[in-house]
């Protein structure tokens, strides 16, 4: 399989990259890791006339602990880097776990968090993990700049609200409160190199070690045209004391949020049953991690 012809441009500043994006209109695509884009180009699903590489744009591949409470992640940070980042593993465990389950080592070495988000695939690994932290995405164009909540970013399979002249330049997350635990579970056929049949991320905060749940977020992937939050299940859990029974009830409520499809990876029926099981498992796991919270 051959790549179609295209022009390859390597801007060296963010301004130049944004100006190029503006000038090229809809014919250009941004390339970071290229693990998805190049495959789609070889399959002739996409035929951009220009590829604008972020390789030489400084500052986009860093994870920065902010002075205030939180973290700033560059869009060109690779899955491999996130999976092994100590701070992310400690405070944003679902994100690190999702990063470590994306594809296989060679893919993780190239694939970036920004690429994974802007692709807008319903089964992608990073979106649910970002959604449970209410990540804020910073979009920039040559003339404008805006911030948007990750939950409002996805529009449909392969569609997001990003404009052709915009670049995702940063992902910001607040460090969760004390006694928070998180989890990420992915169900696929194999133990690696999988596109999820169902994936679920959870962040759960306790008032105190034996106290009730004061904050909880559940996000599911591959169960609807976009990744979704299970708000009803979250509401049900708020203020309740954690227990297996409560978690399994939340799992059952979570299914109500979902509209999975039947495709060659799995049927709607099985996916619905797994949403229930995996949501309750992820909650249990997050709860165990919350109990083990350390400052």
């Amino acid at each position, binding site marked *: *399989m*051959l790549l179609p012809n295209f022009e390859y441009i390597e801007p060296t500043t963010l301004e130049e990259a944004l100006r190029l994006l503006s000038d090229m209109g809809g014919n250009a695509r941004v390339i970071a890791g290229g693990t998805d884009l190049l*495959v789609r180009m070889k399959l002739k699903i996409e035929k951009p006339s220009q590829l604008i590489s972020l390789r030489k744009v400084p500052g986009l591949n860093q994870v920065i602990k902010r002075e205030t409470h939180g973290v700033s992640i560059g869009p060109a940070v690779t899955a491999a880097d996130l999976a092994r980042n100590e701070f992310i593993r400690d405070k944003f465990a679902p994100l690190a776990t999702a990063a470590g389950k994306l594809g*296989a080592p060679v893919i993780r070495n190239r694939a970036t968090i920004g690429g994974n988000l802007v692709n807008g695939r319903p089964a992608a690994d990073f979106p649910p993990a970002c959604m449970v932290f209410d990540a804020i995405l910073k979009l920039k164009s040559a003339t404008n700049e805006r911030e948007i909540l990750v939950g409002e970013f996805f529009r449909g399979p392969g569609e997001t609200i990003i404009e052709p002249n915009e670049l995702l330049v940063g992902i910001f997350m607040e460090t969760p409160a004390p006694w928070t635990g998180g989890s990420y579970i992915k*169900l696929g*056929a*194999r*133990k*690696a*190199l999988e596109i999820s*049949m169902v994936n679920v991320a959870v962040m759960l905060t306790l008032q105190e070690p034996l106290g009730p749940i004061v904050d909880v977020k559940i996000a599911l992937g591959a169960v609807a045209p976009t990744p979704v939050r299970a708000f009803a299940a979250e509401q049900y859990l708020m203020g309740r004391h954690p227990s297996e029974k409560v978690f399994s009830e939340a799992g059952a409520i979570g299914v109500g949020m979902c509209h999975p499809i039947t495709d*060659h990876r*799995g*049927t709607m*029926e*099985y996916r619905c*049953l*797994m949403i229930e*099981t*995996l949501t309750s*498992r992820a909650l249990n796991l997050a709860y165990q991690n919350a109990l083990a919270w350390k400052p």
Partner: protein
Amino acid sequence: MNDFRVLNTRAPRVDAAAKATGQAKYADDFKMPGMLYAAILQSPVAHARILHIDTSKAKKLAGVENVVTSKEAGLIRYGVSPARYDETIFAHDKVRYVGDEIAAVAATSMEIAQEALSLIKVDYEEIPAVFDMFEATKDGAPQIHDEFPGNINAEVHQEFGDTEAALKSCDLVVDHTFLNKRQDAAFIEPHSCVAVFDHAGKLTLYTSTQVPHYVMRTVAMTLQIPVGNVRVIKPYVGGGFGPKCEATPLEMSCGLLSKITGKPVKMTYSREQVFLHSRARHQFYAEMSLGVMNDGTMVALKNKAVLDGGAYTSFGIATVYYSGSLLGGPYKLKAMKYDGHRAYTNKPACGAQRGHGGVAHRACFEQLIDMTAEKIGMDPVEMRLKNIMTAGDMTVNELDMSSLGMKECIEAIREGSDWNNKKGKLPKGKGIGMACGFFVSGAGYPIYRSDTYHSTVVIKMSEDGGVANLLTGSAEIGQGSDTAMAMIAAETLGIPLENVRVYSGDTDYSVDLGAYSSRQTLMTGHATKEAAEDLRDKIAGFLAEEMNVEKSGITFVDGIVKFDDAPGNFEKIRTSYIKEHRGWTDQPSGEFLTFREAARLAFLKGGTLVGTGKYKPHRLGGSYKGAAVGTSPAYGCSAQIVEVSVDLETGQITVDKMTDAHDCGLAINKMSVEGQMQGSLSMGLGECLFEEVKFDSRGRVLNPSLGEYKIPTALDMPNVRSIIVESNEPNGPYGAKEVGEGAIMPTIPAILNAIYDATGVRINELPVTSEKLFMALVEKNRIV
């Protein structure tokens, strides 16, 4: 213990450094001056009449050198077995599957060749297609080949003993059905070929194949070139597993385009094209009844098969025979009946793949044995041991088990897995299962009817006496045959392994039928051994003459020569050798004459020294129709125990451990044997749990990539305990026989039996996805 110096060790592969460093050249690495790039136009529809093909626009594109269709290629029919030649190089009247070849283009670049394909205009008149093997043989189904009404490509009816009467006499008859899915071999290297037609009228093909000899014959026949003018060279090959066992449209197109243009022509399949070409494992439906006595004695087996063949025959006529014949052992049966047929469908043709024709039916049979054992309250291991064949037994369908370490294999895994402490004692969700199997060690007959030698080998000494150059047409495809042949030659000549150099995979070197049916260790091994003996004998003859001693007292071992176990009086030979090599730093020394000095002496006396060897099996098999399929000079066998964990809430299966024993006769190279055993397990695990080539409603492959067609990753493979069992095969060189395919036989049923042990659910359709198992668990709980 044995006295082998080279054999039976864990010698590193002779090609290890070349492969590890990237020096090894594969077909796609070849570049030649003026080389053109070719591409094939393949049908986008599953079943259609071709009304018109217009190549004029493509021909006008700058950089296009030639475009060929059936008009240029002709309509000579070919296939694998002459009994079913049903293909032409290009489709002419109709296309029969998505991927059927229509035209080929040669251009100055790959990009131009691809663009030219898009300029070829084909008018199709689509006609109804049939994709399901059961639908295909129903009345009124679309007819795929006029010559084969009802889409029956081949059918087999065999009976040994009176099966109905035998079943009636049984205490218990148990039935089972089984359905696998079409598999892809997923070799790393897609098909690739460079064709060079020279001014002398000779065609040389550098091609990724398992069978240079058969490719040579088929290409010579279809392109109408005298067979002596076709040379097939197999460079390094990145795996075959069966689908590379036949001539491909790629080889014939490149050959034709090179013949027309006079330039080298290269083509490499994309991964998608590998899926479209297929020739991999069929889909099989098996239906069986096993009759036993209450004490566990097996009496009779009734076996039915339906095979989804796809649009052409490929190896299929042999495949449908194997599905029956390979159940004749390793258990004693009084009667066996087999009825099988292979249906044509509008999908890519299926062919041979590791464990040819036997894998799905073995899976059904070995599940059936476990089901029967449970019903009569017998341990599955005990039940198998009770019925096991031993060396010297003949199966009911006249396959001669000249050696058979089946019992030893079963005992080894029972011990190695701690079966007795696990079976029936594991917690819910954990299970243990076992199965056995056997396979041919080389097909007893060539694909075409002939008295040809199956293998010949030439060993030519270097003039200095230091290197034995082994020339063979056999195919090293990653399985390690070059290393095995080097070891056999070194052992026989009595020299160190590093003094043998193997030149293989070239039809100009020798005749060899190639790497299929697990034949090379035994057959090429025999020819290698004979060639080395011939060479050794010649050297000993010259030595005896020179030293005035009896030839029979001369022995070669570890690179030195002994005369009646003593050094002998060789001063004169050494003195002249040293004089010949004055100034050299590697002069022979020591108290014994070296092999190098002896071989140099032989050269001085007789000129270039050549030893030749040849092999063909003795007459094998019964006289009934189809008796040839399944015959072999020897049979390898294996037993496996698999332990699994099942997540009862999701249906996810984790294979925790595999214990595998294989009887390969003498293990020429223990490391290679273990490699084949573990590779077989991985392939079997993939077929059992993940793999399925899927089609949409119009016959297009839905998952033609290694991203969506799922073979096991390293994380899916458990730790494997490989136990080599070594019977002494009287028909094998140094007692050796196969391991390449037989090792896959027990894997699928052992996993399925373990899943049943863990869950109480019997799965009879592959692959066992988490969804399939979970839904079966839900169903079972609903009933309970």
